[in-house]
């Protein structure tokens, strides 16, 4: 690097000049924006090395288990910087999502020492944590000898980082004072509305603001869609049908999945009058305006249908809309985003979230070195790199959301995305009650929803039966 460029980049990393001044000055020196980004990333790596003994575990070899995902792509794209910073070698196995969690369960339940760290959803840690398969990361985070001073743990969005922490007590509040930090977020998804602006504008449809408007707009959209349908939501017989749009709307009415009594016992809470009313509207919406093969729809079909213009909107993960708005999709550039409060009386959206996070295997033989990797990959520098240069969206750190370049990138190509995020983020968190039967109960909930949509069981009766079954399972499990 030439000295002038180097001095400029170092000054930026120290914070003595702004990003705008840096780009302007580098431009005057003939450096392109892409090269400038690379120089900043390299300089940041050097700056990090100055404050902390990153080379302490030089020569160690780590192995990761990763899911095939843009978040993993961002990690791999930046991994050379980690190797250079620490001298630690990193290998990884990467699997498609269909088989990924089976692979994780098989590796952890067999106490395999092959993998040191792995990608995990926060919900999965409710199984892995109590089973003794993953480490509480607080022991590393709170140890200044092991955690670099620039890690900025307090920079994580509160709802997101707390959703990765649980005390292991069934029904215990996420992020409580005695909670164990089972994982640290890479990035996360809020569930909001993604709609096709082209279809909405052409047919003078208004963006719905609550559940009743959602039903009306979806029905109106279906009426004008040739060979398409009004709204995409998930419907497969899986827990994954419950957690996105469905639970986000449900929790906006302050409804819960389970209640906890004074003795700590859990009971079903999904057959209240408000819940029944919400279920009736949700079922009606799918019957009137949903996909004809809704009961087989996973995130993939929901996303690709909105990207292909087959559905007018979807109430699902915002990042699905983000990816479907990118090149290679028929409706690229036509998708827009809006925060969604199902409850007309609610002040703001309260989306349930999905988090892709990193967790440490309890069977790792080199935990300190593994922590070095985890703090790097969840650190502010990598999060910023991923958000700016790759598709690490939604970043889990407040500082990245405050970054001008990232906001500019999002505002330029993704109409309403930043506003949607800013409106929803304060209320965004996991809305489920953490407990060991999470997957059993939510899969049964999805199965009941399928029966309701197929008119095999009336909503009231279906929810009462579901609550009865849930209570029995909770009692059998001693919860």
């Amino acid at each position, binding site marked *: 690097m030439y000295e002038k460029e180097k001095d400029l980049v170092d000054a930026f990393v120290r914070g003595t000049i702004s990003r705008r001044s840096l780009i302007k000055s580098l431009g005057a020196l003939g450096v392109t924006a892409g090269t400038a980004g690379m120089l900043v990333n390299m300089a940041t790596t050097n700056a990090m090395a100055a404050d902390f003994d990153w080379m302490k575990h030089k020569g160690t070899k780590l192995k990761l288990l990763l899911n095939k995902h843009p978040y993993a792509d961002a990690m791999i794209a930046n991994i050379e910087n980690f190797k250079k910073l620490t001298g630690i070698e990193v290998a990884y196995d990467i699997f498609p999502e269909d088989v990924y969690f089976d692979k994780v369960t098989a590796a952890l339940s067999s106490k395999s020492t092959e993998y040191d760290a792995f990608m995990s959803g926060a919900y999965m840690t409710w*199984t892995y944590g109590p089973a003794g398969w993953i480490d509480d990361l607080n022991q590393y985070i709170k140890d200044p000898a092991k955690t670099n001073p620039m890690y900025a743990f307090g920079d994580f969005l509160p709802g997101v980082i707390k959703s990765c922490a649980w005390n292991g007590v069934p029904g215990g509040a996420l992020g409580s004072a005695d909670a164990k930090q089972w994982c640290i977020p890479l990035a996360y998804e809020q569930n909001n509305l993604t709609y096709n602006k082209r279809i909405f504008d052409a047919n003078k449809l208004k963006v719905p603001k609550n559940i009743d408007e959602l039903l009306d707009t979806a029905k109106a959209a279906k009426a004008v869609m040739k060979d398409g349908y009004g709204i995409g939501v998930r419907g*497969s017989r899986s827990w994954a049908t419950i957690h996105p749009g469905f639970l986000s709307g449900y929790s906006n009415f302050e409804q819960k999945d389970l209640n906890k009594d004074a003795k700590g016992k859990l009971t079903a809470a999904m057959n209240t009058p408000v819940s029944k009313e919400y279920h009736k509207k949700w079922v009606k919406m799918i019957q009137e305006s949903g996909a004809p093969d809704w*009961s*087989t729809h996973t995130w993939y079909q929901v996303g690709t*249908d909105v990207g292909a213009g087959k559905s007018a909107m979807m109430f699902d993960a915002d990042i699905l809309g983000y990816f479907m708005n990118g090149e290679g999709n028929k409706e690229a550039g036509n998708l827009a985003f809006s925060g969604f409060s199902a409850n007309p009386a609610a002040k703001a959206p309260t989306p349930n979230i999905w988090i892709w996070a990193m967790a440490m295997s309890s069977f790792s033989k080199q935990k300190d070195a593994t922590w070095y990797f985890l703090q790097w990959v969840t650190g502010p520098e990598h999060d910023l790199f991923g958000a700016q240069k790759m598709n690490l969206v939604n970043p889990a750190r407040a500082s990245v959301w405050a970054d001008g370049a990232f906001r500019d990138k999002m505002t330029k190509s993704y109409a309403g995305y930043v506003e949607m995020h800013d409106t929803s983020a304060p209320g965004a968190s996991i809305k489920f009650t953490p407990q060991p039967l999470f997957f059993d109960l939510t*899969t049964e909930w999805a199965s009941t929803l*399928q029966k309701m949509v197929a008119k095999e069981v009336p909503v009231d009766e279906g929810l009462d039966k579901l609550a009865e079954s849930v209570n029995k399972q909770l009692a059998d499990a001693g919860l």
Partner: protein
Amino acid sequence: MAQSLSAMFDKMTPQFKFKISRRWLPYLLSLPALLTCIGILIPFFTAVAYSLQRFRLSQPAGRRWNWGENYLAFFNDSSFWNTLKVSVTYAVLTVVIELLLALGIALLLQKRSRVNNFVSIMLLMPLMTAPALAALMWKLMTNPGFGILSYFVKVLGMPNFNWASDPQTAMFTVVLVDVWVYTPFIMILLLAGLRSLPPQPFEAAALDGVPRWFVFWRITLPMLTPYMLTATLFRAIESIQQFDIIYAMTQGGPGDRLTVFQVEAYLNFFQSTNVGRSAALMMILWALTYFLSNLFIKNWLRLRERARGEA
């Protein structure tokens, strides 16, 4: 020590060495089979042990022997009875339809000719497709938006035929995929059987001018029965253990319309981490398969004896 043993062995007379090897030879020869047997029995008895425990990976502290509780709980568990009903229905439907179709095709292709040989090879193509891939292919063909089969049913005046996503037609759809994949398997077995039948009874019937229908019922079918039983045995065992087609197409839904044993056990283990219930389900499936195998093999042996004129 090893050297002294080796020295002792060298001093033995050739006759004594031969006696030793004669004594150990049977054990040595059966060792591979014994090792294979142990390799099979260890996982089997591990599953038996798990099925007798309250064992949920997410609640390790609650793990304990509960002996037959997992099995007893099935009696009052409506989802278990539904699983049993769905599994048996699926197995009966697929085996009966495939057997009838395969018999018809085999009879059509019985005569050796270039065309028949070519067609019989072509008909084997679905069998070479992995069932999970076949299921995904059919999922695309039945997609209401762009699936070719959905297009055909629309042309035939059924615009709301939603294949696997409709509880009314879900079983029909997965049975259809199974029939597409596995009918060639039965067909090839029956075709081989038909072509290996002795010609004399057929020649005698032709000389006497016996009607074809009578020949089929009184000569062909009885002589072909051992082959049909063999094919049924294989297919019934495999069909009652169905997983890939159903899981790839519907994950056991809509509702609990297609929650066969393997799907239920898989979800219990990998999703709910309820190892005890999952293992108990698999043990019941094993018992069902064992019962079916015995039933078919006994009948197959009886028919074979009868065919040899020894019954």
